[in-house]
């Protein structure tokens, strides 16, 4: 009976307890980044110790909760554990979000891989951090060259301008840490102002599909991102030391990051690069040294669903330009082209004389984001850039220390982006961008301005979205509109102004007359729509990407306002005030197979560009400095097509064969001539041996064959000299060439890696069609680089 009474008491007490505390919490656990469900997470009610687990749909249930406030500790194998406070009132439903990227972020630090894709329907090529590291003594362009379909327009070997499927300069946007680089990219001899050692990952989008970055990316977009910082209490860094035999120089690059679990992080990074004259197999390349100094710092506070970050970088680069390439007119050209070796060869030196470039680029950015439920992520970014480009020519007397070109380009941009998941299948992105750019050409140079002073105002809006129909099909579409207003102050030579007939057409633009110069103030407006539409189809091991994009680009200042002698090209270049925007239509396909042993991507493309702006020779002008070829910018209709191929085959557990092939053909449909400076077909074949068991050893032998470009417009010309009529061949491309490279890396211990890279192993003499100094000297001879990488 006593027992019965006790039992009754117990049951009733339970009953009475349950009476007050019979509430249920139904929870769902999601990944804050992409809203995907988190399964297998443990939820513990800290007050009671009651635990539950999320099911396959990320749901969990906890019963018998009182109407009170509880602390829930939610943990997941790949997330930081987080405490949530929840108030229970009756049957409560609540969604919890965890940062699921901890592992992924660590992976990013190791591999430099990022899974965020800017487009769904264009295959994106990635260069991971490990590959980037091998180019630490080179440049951004060198690292990009490792991607099929990406080549470069070089001025010597230190000015490397990336080219995507044959297009470059203003047709390729370069995004550095979320900021579109404004570094006077229009010039063929202007390389991007980015320190390769500050880059954590590189992504190339061959086409204009990534509309959030800009609508004028007729060639494509290059996205360079800094390494990601994890949400962990950690202090880590990396130092790279590298030394090369060619140029007798090297690089020191270090980075240090302090991160806290609460989301605060601080990083600093710096590099120093110094090389003397480089050498071709048979001679010194006089005045080709380089001295590069960079520093960047980042501070941020990243709280899963909101964050702010400030970033600053300073890039300073001094580059010597081959002395023998600085020549006068056709008479000098006859002598330079007739000589088998450069006309000026001096002894090796570290000092950089004229001609040289001295570029300083400041970049500052403040960015913040906030995730708002039911809307998505709203980001706001303000960035400021200042690019100061100094170019020094061979001049007389005290003028030799005076820059011939001194441009300061200030750019400010404000961007608002919204990324949203409308449903599980439909996600969208939209945003607006406003920008102001001011170019100031310093008149103290004593040389007429190459690029005029101008103020440019731009405004753009875009919207894009993708829809996942099912596991196989994804559709994507986007729209963008850019408006640009440019207010220019340009001094024209009266003789040119009249020669062009501008005096009768645009006499109202003249605001002042100074002797033989006229100050003209054109105010130009450009309206540029762009759109993209595409799909991705996945089947088995295969994926098929198909995309059509239309993009349009306003002419750049050099295309509009060039008017005079371009020294480094030994020609007179003339722009046209009346240019309209060029419009491109591109269709690109990619078929990808990701097999266990065999992997390939094949990407054919076709582009049609209306009102394509190119420069071509139109005659010879006799001046008191000699005869110069005159090149005029013109608008034509262009057509380009080609193919990029990547393949990798595992021969055994340790042995892999990697193949790359790129082909592009470009034609001027207006005159039915091939386009100038199209990259010749090239193929890269490597045999890679890796042994993770033994010091993580990797040995790669790489064969790089570049075919001769056999399609080119004939721009040769004749010049009448006192004794003879000389035929000057400036268009015939050099012969094809084969280079052999060797890469060897090993880990002495988990934190210390050594690399030995030998480029041009056989010391082959060659000239590269896309090197603007190919008329004057051979390309680089053998280069042995020893690199030490230390992680701490």
């Amino acid at each position, binding site marked *: 009976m006593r027992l019965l009474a006790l039992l009754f008491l117990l049951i009733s007490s339970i009953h009475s307890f349950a009476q007050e505390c019979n509430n249920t919490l139904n929870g769902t656990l999601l990944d804050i980044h992409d809203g995907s469900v988190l399964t297998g997470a443990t939820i513990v009610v800290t007050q009671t110790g009651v635990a539950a687990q999320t099911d396959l749909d990320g749901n969990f249930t906890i019963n018998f909760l009182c109407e009170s406030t509880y602390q829930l500790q939610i943990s997941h194998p790949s997330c930081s554990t987080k405490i949530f406070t929840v108030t229970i009132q009756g049957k409560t439903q609540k969604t919890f979000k965890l940062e699921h990227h901890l592992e992924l972020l660590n992976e990013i630090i190791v591999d430099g891989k990022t899974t965020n894709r800017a487009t769904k329907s264009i295959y994106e090529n990635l260069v991971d951090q490990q590959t980037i590291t091998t180019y630490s003594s080179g440049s951004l362009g060198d690292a990009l060259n490792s991607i099929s379909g990406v080549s470069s327009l070089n001025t010597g070997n230190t000015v490397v301008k990336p080219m995507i499927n044959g297009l470059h300069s203003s047709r390729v946007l370069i995004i550095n840490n979320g900021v579109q680089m404004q570094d006077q990219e229009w010039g063929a001899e202007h390389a991007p102002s980015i320190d390769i050692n500050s880059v954590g990952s590189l992504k190339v989008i061959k086409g204009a599909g990534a509309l959030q970055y800009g609508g004028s990316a007729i060639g494509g977009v290059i996205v360079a991102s800094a390494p990601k910082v994890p949400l962990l209490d950690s202090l880590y860094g990396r130092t790279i030391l590298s030394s090369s035999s060619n140029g007798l120089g090297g690089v020191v690059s270090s980075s240090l990051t302090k991160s806290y679990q609460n989301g605060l992080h601080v990083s600093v990074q710096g590099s120093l690069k110094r090389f003397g004259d480089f050498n071709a197999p048979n001679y010194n390349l006089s005045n080709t040294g380089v001295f590069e100094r960079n520093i960047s710092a980042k501070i941020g506070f990243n709280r899963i669903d909101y964050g702010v970050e400030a970033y600053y970088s300073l890039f300073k680069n001094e580059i010597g330009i081959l002395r*023998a390439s*600085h*020549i*006068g*007119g056709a*008479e*000098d050209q006859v*002598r330079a082209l007739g000589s088998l070796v450069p006309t*000026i060869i001096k002894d090796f030196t570290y000092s950089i004389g004229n001609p040289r470039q001295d570029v300083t680029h400041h970049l500052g950015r403040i960015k913040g984001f906030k995730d708002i439920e*039911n*809307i998505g992520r*709203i980001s706001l970014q303000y960035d400021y850039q200042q690019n100061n480009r100094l170019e020094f020519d*061979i*001049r*007389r*007397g005290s*003028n030799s220390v005076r820059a011939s070109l001194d441009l300061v380009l200030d750019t400010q941009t*404000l961007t*608002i982006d*919204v990324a*949203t998941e*409308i*449903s599980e299948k439909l996600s969208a992105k939209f945003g*607006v961008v*406003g*920008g*102001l750019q*001011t170019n100031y*050409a310093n*008149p103290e140079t*004593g*040389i007429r*301005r190459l690029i*005029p*002073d101008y*103020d440019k*105002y731009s*405004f753009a809006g875009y919207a894009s979205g993708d829809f996942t129909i099912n596991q196989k099909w994804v559709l994507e579409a986007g729209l963008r509109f850019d408006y640009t207003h440019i207010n220019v*102050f340009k*001094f024209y*030579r*009266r*003789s*040119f102004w009249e020669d062009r007939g501008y005096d009768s057409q645009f006499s109202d633009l003249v605001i002042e007359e*100074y*002797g*033989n110069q006229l*100050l003209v*103030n054109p105010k130009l407006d450009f309206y540029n729509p762009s759109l993209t539409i595409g799909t991705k189809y996945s089947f088995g091991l295969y994926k098929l990407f198909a995309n059509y994009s239309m993009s349009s680009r306003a002419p750049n200042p050099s295309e509009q306002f060039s008017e*005079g*002698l371009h020294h480094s090209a030994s020609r007179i270049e003339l722009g046209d005030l009346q240019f309209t925007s060029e419009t491109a239509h591109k269709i690109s396909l990619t078929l990808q197979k990701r097999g266990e042993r065999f992997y390939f991507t094949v990407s054919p493309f076709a582009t049609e560009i209306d009102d394509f702006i190119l420069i071509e020779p139109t005659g010879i*002008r*006799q*001046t*008191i*400095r*000699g005869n*110069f070829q005159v090149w005029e910018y013109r608008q034509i209709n262009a057509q380009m097509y080609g193919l990029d191929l990547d393949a990798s085959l595992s021969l055994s557990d340790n042995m892999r064969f990697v193949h790359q092939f790129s082909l592009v053909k470009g034609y001027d449909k207006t005159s039915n001539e091939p386009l100038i400076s199209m990259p010749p077909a090239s193929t890269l074949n490597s045999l890679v041996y890796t042994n993770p068991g033994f010091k993580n050893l990797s040995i790669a032998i790489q064969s790089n064959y570049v075919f001769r470009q056999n399609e080119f417009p004939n721009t040769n010309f004749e010049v009448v000299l*006192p*004794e003879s009529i000389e035929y000057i061949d400036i268009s015939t491309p050099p012969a094809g060439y084969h280079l052999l490279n060797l890469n060897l890396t090993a880990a002495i211990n988990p934190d210390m890696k050594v690399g030995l890279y030998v480029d041009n192993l056989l010391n082959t003499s060659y000239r590269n069609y896309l090197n603007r100094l190919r008329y004057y000297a051979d390309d680089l001879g053998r280069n042995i680089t020893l690199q030490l990488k230390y992680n701490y």
Partner: protein
Amino acid sequence: MKTLQLNSITNFKFQTMKTMKTMKRCSMYALLAIAMIGCSDDDAAPLPVNEEEVITTVILTLTPESGEEVVLTAIDLDGDGPGELVTTMSGSFSESTQYQGAVRFLNETETPAEEITDEVLEEADEHQVFYTTTEGLNIQTTYEDQDSQGNPLGLQITLTTGAASDGLLTVTLIHEPTKSAEGVSDGDITNAGGEIDIIADFDVSF
């Protein structure tokens, strides 16, 4: 389930509209801010650049011991602009005569004209004037001045005519020639390197 999705879409639309409004407002502020920054440094028209180093004019004056002075002039006032290079000659050469020659380089875009010859003289080591003739023109030139290294400069020359002939006399000013290269100190331009600052051809007959 379907209704739920529909709901969330409607909800999204509503929210989007709100966001759009906020964004519009934000972007307007932003543009205003940018416009204000933009306008502050406006309206100051840039100054023209007068090129100080340009050589517009070459004057070669040839004086015989007795007889008529010959002056050869080449002028290109707009440099690399479309304006023509004009060469003129006053006086006429005589056969078998020795002339003392002096060459001047001027920048006539400035008033008064700037004497570039002085700069060339100051940097004699880095300059050399070459006098070349087409085959058959019976003219000999010898250097009468030297730089600090004892290499020829060419601002002062002796020009000697031979038997009656015609052809072109070319005056070339080279900046940074390799004076030590073969033949250069004898006035042979072939191996001179450097770059042409000035080149002027004169039609000559006597």
